[in-house]
């Protein structure tokens, strides 16, 4: 009898979970978090904001508001490795420099072969791609620290209650909190709840600061600065705990990105003619865009960016906006998510990123500042 009742309850619980998961249409798109004003700011009016325009109080907080919706809170006892984003002191702490160094060193290791092969433009294209994707995916944030203010960590935020999209909310809760599961399965929970890398707010009572990890994605299980899916990138990333390190996350993310770039680069003449210009040469800006289309949609989607009417054109247009931010670096443009939340770079690091863009655009290979950064 006991066995039968266990079986019945087990199957009904599993069924309920399945129905819940299948009927939920949670779709977590970072673009949905950007208000019209913010979109306008990042894409079109950045030049005017580069001057001494008065900062709009609401826009200054935009990155913070966005991050607040996508951060999960880290166990106070957990070890984390790498720079931590603190919004108000991000520049005094040289956060931008630290992030750029990690990204460029990792990207260089993966793209150096193109220099050896005598194609510096491919090399700089990959470096420019590497400077864009972490902005596109994670706003250049992996870990964040905030004051232990209830606005940053309360039950509603921890469970994704403020996420605008109901689909995104449902998926966030299922992946990170198990709240629904706890109510249904609680009667079977005879094991003591163990602490893990992420915890709920109540587990941080008394703490002065919260450390957080960026978690988002359409199903609530995309982790870190490169938004790596727990379903697709589980074995070699999540299961190995690489999310506790900025460097390991960047390495893994750029490795996956490089696979898409390299496959597109090698097969441009045969399989991906969308990367060729009218003279049958590789258009490296198209290769950059296609590499991200594949990163986002899968390897078969390399030419997705060229379909302006396609269902994912919005995704690719969003990426292009962030690519434009990168390409504007050697024209006085800002580095960071938006002009109201720039990441200052030291002169040496700024010179290095400008070299990347200039070399890409002008097909040159002058890299003294970049070499200094790589040697540091």
């Amino acid at each position, binding site marked *: 009898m006991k*066995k039968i009742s*266990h*079986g*019945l309850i*087990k*199957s009904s619980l599993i*069924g309920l979970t*399945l*129905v819940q998961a*299948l009927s939920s249409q949670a*779709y*977590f798109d970072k673009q949905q978090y950007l208000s019209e004003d913010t979109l306008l700011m990042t894409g079109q009016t950045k030049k005017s904001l580069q001057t001494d325009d008065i900062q709009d109080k609401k826009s200054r907080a935009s990155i913070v508001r966005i991050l607040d919706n996508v951060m*999960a809170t880290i166990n106070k006892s957990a070890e984390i490795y790498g720079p931590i984003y603190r919004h108000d002191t991000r520049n005094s702490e040289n956060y931008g420099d630290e992030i750029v160094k990690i990204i460029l060193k990792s990207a260089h290791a993966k793209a150096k072969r193109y220099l*050896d*092969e005598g194609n510096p433009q491919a090399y700089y294209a990959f470096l420019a791609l590497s400077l864009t994707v972490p902005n596109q995916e994670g706003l250049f944030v992996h870990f964040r620290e905030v004051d232990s203010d209830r606005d940053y960590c309360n039950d509603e935020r921890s469970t994704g209650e403020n996420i605008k999209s109901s689909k995104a909310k449902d998926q966030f809760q*299922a*992946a*990170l909190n*198990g709240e629904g*599961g*706890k109510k249904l*399965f*609680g009667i*079977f*929970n*005879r*094991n003591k*709840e163990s*602490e*893990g*890398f*992420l915890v*709920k707010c109540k587990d941080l009572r008394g703490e002065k600061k919260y450390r957080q990890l960026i*978690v988002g994605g*359409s*199903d609530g299980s995309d*982790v870190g600065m490169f938004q790596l*899916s*727990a*379903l*697709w*990138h*589980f*074995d070699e990333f*999540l299961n190995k705990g690489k999310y506790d390190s900025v460097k390991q996350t960047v390495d893994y993310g750029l490795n996956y990105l490089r696979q898409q770039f390299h496959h597109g*680069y*090698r*097969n441009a*003449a045969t399989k991906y003619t969308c990367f060729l210009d009218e*003279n*049958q*040469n*590789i258009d490296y800006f198209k290769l950059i865009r296609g590499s991200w289309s594949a990163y986002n*949609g*899968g*390897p*078969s*989607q390399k030419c997705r960016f060229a379909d302006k009417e396609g269902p*994912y054109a919005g*995704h690719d247009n969003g990426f292009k906006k962030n690519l434009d931010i990168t390409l504007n670096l050697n024209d006085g443009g800002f580095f960071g998510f938006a002009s109201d939340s720039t990441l200052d770079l030291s002169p040496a690091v700024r010179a290095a990123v400008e070299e990347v863009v200039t070399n890409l655009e002008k097909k040159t290979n002058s890299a003294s500042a970049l070499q200094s950064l790589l040697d540091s």
Partner: protein
Amino acid sequence: MLGKKKNSFLVASTVFVLVMGAVALLDNETSSEQIDSEHSIDHSLVANAHKEANTYRKKILEKALPKKATGSAAYRNFVDSAVTTDQYLEELRIGQAKEFLKTSFKSLKDCYREGCGQLPDEDDGFYDPALSIAQQSLKRLLEITARHPKKLDLRNWMEESELLDLLGAENQGLRQAAFENLVNLKGTKEAFQDILEKTRELQGEAAGDALKNMLTFVNEDNKQDLIDSMALISKEGSSATVLGILENLSELKVSQSQINQITEGLCRFKEKKSESHNVAAMSYYLKSMAANSGIELEAQNYCL
């Protein structure tokens, strides 16, 4: 389209739930601790992701595998991502493990190319065959068998042709595990010739990985066979395939005539402007090969 797919998936999954309920009733190994371990709540990110990945992995595998394969401890250990390949056989009866691995291999090898029922993500359509549950499961399965070929009696149920086919899989780890099993099954000498022949059909990085793995078995007796294969691919393969091989074999020591033999078939790429970047790369790797071998690239035979 997506709506129709979702509806039929809902129906299918409802049926699936009812079937699972019946399995749960009949499962004699179910214990209260087992229910607890399946449903206990752990706020750890990894534990939650384990649970979600396990659930999703089970969903896909239970579509692909026969019912009898999914009711055992061997199956539960297999889908538990917390159990490493080194730990897999611990506390399992070898007979049960062998039966499960054999049944699963036979099922998955037939459907892995199509994903064994796994669909693209609904929101962004993401799908990568290399990262699919089917290929990752096959990789895991073959990593287990590579560690225990005799214990699991591989010779009596794993076919060489099946492993050769997997040398062309998108997942690099799966290709590597297939290679290791091939060598275990056939021995290095026989495996060398069979893999060499298969390489002529492989593309891109798969071809490069297969030949790179064989470098440890190359000797003066079989090197010419390797060169012959490379030369054939140079004449007939895509530039991506040629480069997939050259990138990995540039340290191979060759003679003057052998490098001439390899380069002869590459002239055709020089005629296409769209291949200019690949031609430059071929030139670089061939020069590296020549330098490593202490020879010069003869101008009249080297048209890159």
